[in-house]
């Protein structure tokens, strides 16, 4: 019995330690981020950030768009099969438009970015740790947080919301195509319906979510990399943990945000 308590206690402590490290790292990165900004910061960091933006964002664009289109079709078809019975097929438009701007676009983007870039961050930093590159940075009088983390975080904060907008547009377009083929509703008219059903608040809620998801993915990925001890096998494990933990935390955060927006939106 004591054993159970002991394990529970140890597990709690290690989780608290993880959350604490995540917060310290986030704070340090935020302070170092000024150096990564264009014009006022260090231009090498800005170049690194642009490089990361291409890597996290542009390279992921086709994948995210396709993912969102497929999900748009799925959502429209599943919705239509039920709503048709009540003769309320036009509600599919609201379902797709609101579902994507508020929820699915940020979430799908986060899952895609976590799989592509969160794991890549962990692998890159983990390898740097194992090959003493992080130590080399330190003795060359560079701050690893500023040199490695800040450009990545800046890039993610810029690119993930953009990707999420693309995902939203693709998903809504897929819904429009479904409506066109099933009810011959013209796309211009469809988009006018979409615009009347979406409010600015929905778009802002989606953007806030994607900023939060970008933060979670970058910092979990980087922290997993920095916590690598030992050899190459530890790097492999860290990439897996990075994806699993960041996806998990993204969904938890999504639930919290949706709850907040639900209660705020009601009043």
């Amino acid at each position, binding site marked *: 019995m004591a054993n159970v308590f002991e394990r529970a206690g140890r597990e709690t402590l290690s989780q608290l330690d993880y959350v604490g490290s995540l917060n310290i790292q986030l704070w340090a990165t935020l302070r170092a981020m000024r150096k990564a900004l264009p014009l006022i910061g260090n231009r090498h960091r800005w170049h690194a950030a642009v490089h990361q933006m291409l890597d996290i964002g542009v390279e992921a664009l086709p994948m995210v768009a396709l993912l969102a289109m497929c999900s748009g079709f799925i959502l429209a078809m599943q919705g239509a099969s039920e709503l048709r019975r009540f003769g309320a097929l036009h509600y599919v438009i609201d379902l797709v438009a609101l579902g994507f701007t508020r929820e699915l676009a940020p979430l799908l983007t986060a899952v895609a970015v976590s799989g592509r870039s969160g794991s890549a961050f962990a692998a890159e930093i983990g390898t740097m740790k194992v090959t003493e590159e992080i130590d*080399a940075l*330190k003795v060359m009088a560079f701050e690893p947080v500023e040199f490695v983390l800040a450009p990545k975080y800046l890039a993610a904060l810029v690119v993930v919301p953009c990707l999420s907008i693309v995902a939203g547009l693709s998903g809504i377009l897929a819904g429009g195509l479904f409506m066109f083929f099933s009810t011959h509703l013209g796309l211009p008219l469809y988009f006018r319906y979409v615009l009347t059903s979406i409010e600015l608040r929905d778009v802002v809620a989606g953007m806030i979510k994607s900023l939060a998801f970008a933060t979670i993915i970058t910092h979990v990925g980087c922290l997993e990399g920095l916590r690598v001890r030992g050899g190459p096998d530890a790097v492999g494990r860290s990439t897996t943990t990075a994806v699993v933990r960041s996806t998990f935390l993204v969904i938890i955060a999504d639930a919290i945000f949706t709850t907040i927006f639900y209660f705020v939106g009601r009043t």
Partner: protein
Amino acid sequence: MSIISVRDLVVEYDGRRVLDGLNLDIEPGQITVLLGGSGSGKSTLLRQILGLEHPKSGSISIKGTDITHCSEADLNKVRRSIGVAFQSAALFNSLSLEDNVALTLREHTALAPSIIDLIVWLKLAVVGLADFGKLHPQELSGGMKKRAAVARALAMDPEILVLDEPSAGLDPIVAAELDELILFLKETFQITALVVTHELDSAFRIADRIAMLFDGKLLAVGTKDELRANQHPRVRQFLNRVPANPVHTPALASYLERYVQSQEAKP
């Protein structure tokens, strides 16, 4: 006036004492070789001197700055006068050889790009890699990587050069070339070098002073001749390459005895 002085340094990992009240002075313009077997605390001492880890107690001052109790900015100022070649070379894998050497010059100095290119070429030429600047570290052999690491350490014309096992894993010819390079640097630039090694030939070729570590303590410090004349049994054992005869240690003997008894007790 010594350039690096270590006072009463105590380092513990998880309660295990790795360095135990160590004192060491390194004189400017000399090559000090740190000798010692595996696990004697050589690498730990090096990490302490580079400010990568904090000691439990004691102090290390480099050029008059106590790096165990100074701000990050002061530490980085000290680090700019130290060039380090790590045991694993620790070259940045994402950068070409040229960029590896140029990194500190680009970021810590305001030199024109053409001057930086020239300096980089010179440093690579010094280690015999002038034609390989465009290659990436993964395209190099082990010996080339080590030499490239020395070139990178020399980039900022450091006052202090720290080399961790520069000749480990190299063929005798390349190892000898590296020794000559270190001697050349001392004679030409009056560089202070701290070289960690367990290769006796190399140590006696380059050293002005040799410090021998054993079990976290300095066993002997002195010139080559003083060390050769030292009668401490451990020093003699190390220099004469006598095996430590682990079979006769009491712990192993009692373990064997118990093992034999348990085998006899079996029916």
